[in-house]
């Protein structure tokens, strides 16, 4: 009796919904007819646990796609083979929006979205593997803001991605926790890779090149999650970041100087090691306070507990831009040193005697690495001002190493 029931129910179900995707492990999304409808319908009707296979080919989408079913894999034929083009998009503010947990995206490309490329909001376990997001016309203020855009998420993996042309950040992880960004390439974006208002992130083995700024670790006020901390940036190459800033004004990244290797703004417990910084015309490494006025008593604008060690530094600081040209170069001269800290600290005591041990900036680099502490607070306080301090030995020391980020979706690795 039971069997007959379910057979009948099955018939009713399939006659109501034209696509027969129930209880299947793998669904081949058809390229026949309207790909937009085929794919969106598959995204809605997919049973949890199934895999949606996207065919090779180039597909024109008019509306944003969205996924709200948990534990789904979407797999294309490769980031050059399966291309979703949103050049003609008329509705929706991103190409693909993911709002369900346990989603793995692999092997396809999203091109030319008017807004963001792929956004994941409020997701536990979101993985981007070998995904390309690109604005094919190159750097342009009219391009969308973010390429890969997980936000308010946890257990975020970005592996083997290629992101080009974002008018804000190519790879942007915001207000999230437990994050790995690795083996990826970001080029011709305003910010190559940006970790913002986030906790526990490992950014490693990436290449950031031809962006305005290669790698940014930011913390901003007036947001639900603040107090970014515990970020490791290691074994990356951030080189030749030589694209003029093309971000629309008003956004914080519009202030990033062309030719920045790494910019840490606010945040605590950041470890930077084993990276190669070179050919960045403003500066290789900047450690700075949030520079704008804000109204948020819960926010700490200072970079604290930063540990920079074992990186290599090539040419930098020969042609500074924006704040580096206006505020830093006049104090340090050219070239701007490899590592610059603005010296903003919380109060006069710290300005004269240094911050508490856990908040100190510690630098352990090869001989010949150049450094400046601009002593901004002291410069403000003292009537005769304060010159930059360039003795890197003032920052000698060691900190406990931060531990590696573990992600549940990589447990079978």
């Amino acid at each position, binding site marked *: 009796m039971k069997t007959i029931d379910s057979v009948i129910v099955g018939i009713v179900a399939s006659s109501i919904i034209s696509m027969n995707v129930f209880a299947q492990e793998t669904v081949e999304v058809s390229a026949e007819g309207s790909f937009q409808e085929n794919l*969106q*319908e598959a995204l*809605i009707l997919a049973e949890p646990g199934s895999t949606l296979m996207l065919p090779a080919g180039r597909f024109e989408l008019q509306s944003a796609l969205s996924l709200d079913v948990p534990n789904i894999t979407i797999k294309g034929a490769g980031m050059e083979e399966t291309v979703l083009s949103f050049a003609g998009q008329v509705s929706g*503010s991103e190409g693909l929006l993911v709002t369900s947990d346990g989603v793995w995206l692999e092997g396809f490309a999203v091109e030319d979205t008017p807004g963001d490329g792929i956004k994941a909001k409020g997701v536990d376990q979101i993985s981007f593997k070998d995904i390309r997001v690109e604005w094919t016309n190159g750097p342009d203020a009219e391009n969308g803001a973010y390429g890969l855009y997980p936000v308010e998420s946890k257990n975020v993996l970005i592996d083997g991605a290629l992101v080009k042309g974002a008018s804000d950040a190519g790879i942007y992880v915001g207000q999230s926790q437990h994050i790995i960004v690795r083996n990826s390439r970001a080029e011709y974006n305003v910010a190559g890779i940006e970790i913002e208002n986030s906790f526990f992130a490992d950014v490693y083995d990436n290449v950031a090149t031809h962006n305005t700024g290669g790698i940014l670790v930011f913390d901003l006020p*007036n947001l*639900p999650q603040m107090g970014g901390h515990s970020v490791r940036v290691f074994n990356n190459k951030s080189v030749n970041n030589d694209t003029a800033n093309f971000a629309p004004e008003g956004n*914080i990244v519009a202030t990033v100087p062309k030719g920045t290797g790494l910019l840490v703004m606010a945040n605590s417990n950041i470890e930077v090691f084993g990276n190669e910084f070179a050919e960045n015309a403003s500066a290789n490494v900047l450690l700075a306070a949030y520079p704008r006025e804000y109204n948020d008593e819960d926010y700490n604008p200072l970079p604290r507990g930063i540990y920079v060690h074992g990186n290599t530094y090539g040419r930098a600081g020969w042609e500074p831009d924006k704040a580096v040209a206006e505020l830093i170069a006049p104090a340090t001269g050219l070239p701007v040193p490899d590592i610059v800290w603005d010296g903003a600290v919380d109060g006069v005591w710290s300005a004269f005697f240094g911050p508490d041990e856990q908040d100190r900036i510690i630098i352990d680099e090869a001989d010949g690495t150049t450094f400046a502490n601009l002593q901004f607070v002291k410069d403000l306080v003292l009537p005769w001002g304060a010159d930059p301090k360039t003795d890197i030995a003032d920052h000698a020391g060691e900190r406990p190493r931060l531990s590696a980020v573990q992600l549940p979706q990589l447990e079978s690795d």
Partner: protein
Amino acid sequence: MALFRVVLLIAAALCAAALPAAAQVQDELLLSKRPQKLLSAYGLFADGAQQAPASGVVPYDLQVPLFTDYAEKYRFVYVPAGQKATYHDTEVFDFPVGSVLVKTFAYPADLRKPDEDVTLIETRLLIHQEAGWNAWAYVWNEDQKDATLKVAGKVLPLDFINLAGEAQSINYVVPNKNQCKGCHSFDKAVTPIGPKARNLNKEYAFASGSENQLIHWSNAGLLDGAPALDQIPSVPTMNDAGADINARARAYLDINCAHCHRAEGPGSTSGLFLTYGEKSAVTWGYEKRPVAAGRGSGGFTYDVAPGNADESILLYRMISTDPGIMMPEVGRTLAHEEGIKLIRDWINSLE
């Protein structure tokens, strides 16, 4: 018993197309996880084409409606017999399982004559099922006799005469199921937006005569716990020139933006919260800097730049129809001229 229900289901599915609309609400079908192919199967309308509700289905209206490309909207609420929604002061009422909110979108040929030559476009159902609220969209057939389920959404080209008397063509977007959730989402669960006390607190011309909607709901046994009328929050209409412009603007932003722009909504990441009760000025946008606006910033510094509407990101995104800039992200392809004027006047009035 299970078999009996299945047979009923099949009968309903097979017969719905052939039979005239059922005049009685089909409670059983409303609770079914799988949606009906045709709207008429639910029996929500005595006459769908005329938007005449079945017995027990009550029409309602909102003090300030969401802007959706100037569509006319016909709204109805159904609460299963013997049950009641529970009143809440600031949030959506707590509707019992089996309740439905019905919203039909329609266009008159000429917006200046809203009751003449009206074409029904789609009817959206928000059904409170055992597992939570579920949203479905039904697109009206060409013959206007019934409406058919559309899961993946649809873009419909439409023509009408606008309020200025000009011919207007739009691509009306029927949302897909996920886009419904783009707005109807509270802590990630599907949820209604409109039926809050402050939006419902107004007179409505019922068949039985004009009456305050909340009193009518209470008297009809749909609503439990409503206090005396003078204790119920209210908001002014958009164009009530005698009302405080702050209240009018905040009520407009509340219904048009705050379903996303609140701590529990899809726009939480922005930190810009536009609920009517939000008291922190920077949180509702006053000299608040953008976060992930991209080119949505328009090159401006603040969401709301007091006294300077034309350099305020909030207004800039209301004016735009570019999908990479415009707000709300879905639900409109046109700019809402009257809303823009209200928000412009409001921001310019701020010090």
